[in-house]
């Protein structure tokens, strides 16, 4: 099991990553962090033994990204703004890549290792995420500008 001090030290960063992955409400992100911690302590207790801080953090982030991929529904909160809606609308693998680079300030190499893909795949996902998000925001802006009788109804 990793040292408790290391886990406690990483908690704020893990919460930030989880919150970006899941969107609001924040409780959903905290539940995800809790699950990731339990996975490390109970299911794979030997995983953190002898691991460096970077390795441990990468492992926890990878676990969070996986949990968000399999367990978190993509339903933005009712009060979510256009950016948050566009972010949650992305495929979870693309969202994780974008967040690792833009929020967590990872290098491409670190992000690729965290997500278990090579650099080219990571860049592909990142570019696609940015393009999809930009298109979504553009559509949102157009629908806001349009008169009510022409508004896009989904």
């Amino acid at each position: 099991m990793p040292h408790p001090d290391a886990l406690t030290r990483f908690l704020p960063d893990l919460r930030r990553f989880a919150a970006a992955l899941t969107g609001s409400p924040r409780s959903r992100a905290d539940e995800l962090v809790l699950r990731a911690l339990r996975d490390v302590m109970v299911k794979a207790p030997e995983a953190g033994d002898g691991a460096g801080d970077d390795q441990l953090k990468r492992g926890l982030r990878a676990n969070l990204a996986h949990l968000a991929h399999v367990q978190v529904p993509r339903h933005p909160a009712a009060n979510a703004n256009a950016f948050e809606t566009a972010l949650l609308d992305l495929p979870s693998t693309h969202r994780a890549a974008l967040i690792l680079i833009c929020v967590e300030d990872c290098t491409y190499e670190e992000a690729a290792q965290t997500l278990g893909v090579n650099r080219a795949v990571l860049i592909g996902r990142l570019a696609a995420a940015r393009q999809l998000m930009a298109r979504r925001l553009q559509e949102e802006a157009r629908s806001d500008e349009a008169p009510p009788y022409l508004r896009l109804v989904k």
Partner: protein
Amino acid sequence: MNFGRFVSDAELCGFLDGEVSAARASEIAAAVRSSPDLQRKLRAWREQSQWLRASFGRIAQEPVPDMLRQAVPAHRLPSVAHEYVLPPSAPVAQKYARGADIAIWKLLVISLIGLFLATALYAGGVVTGTQACAPTLIQKWMDQPKSLRGS
């Protein structure tokens, strides 16, 4: 057509995130200056990055909820799986583990030699050789008349 000026989305990403070489970065910067499309794209991507940082960056400064703090034990928990593999102390157990590896190899080599010898004996090669070179006392004893064997 100047292909040096062509900029893919992947390269534009690298340019935005500082992940392209300095030479390529200056080429991309020149391409962006001359292309309104690239400028628009880059501006949109920058806005996304700024929004992401502004929205989630401050979460790391917030106090961590008790629920999460309490989930981390104060001390390292004993790991059952770990203890099973490496019982009393890791260095000694690792030594034993290495010893076990060597023992398995030894067993395998001895088994292979045994199998080879058994096959050779079965084929008769070794037996014939023994018979040929060892007209032993037993053979002499067998060749004697029965009346003389008992003495």
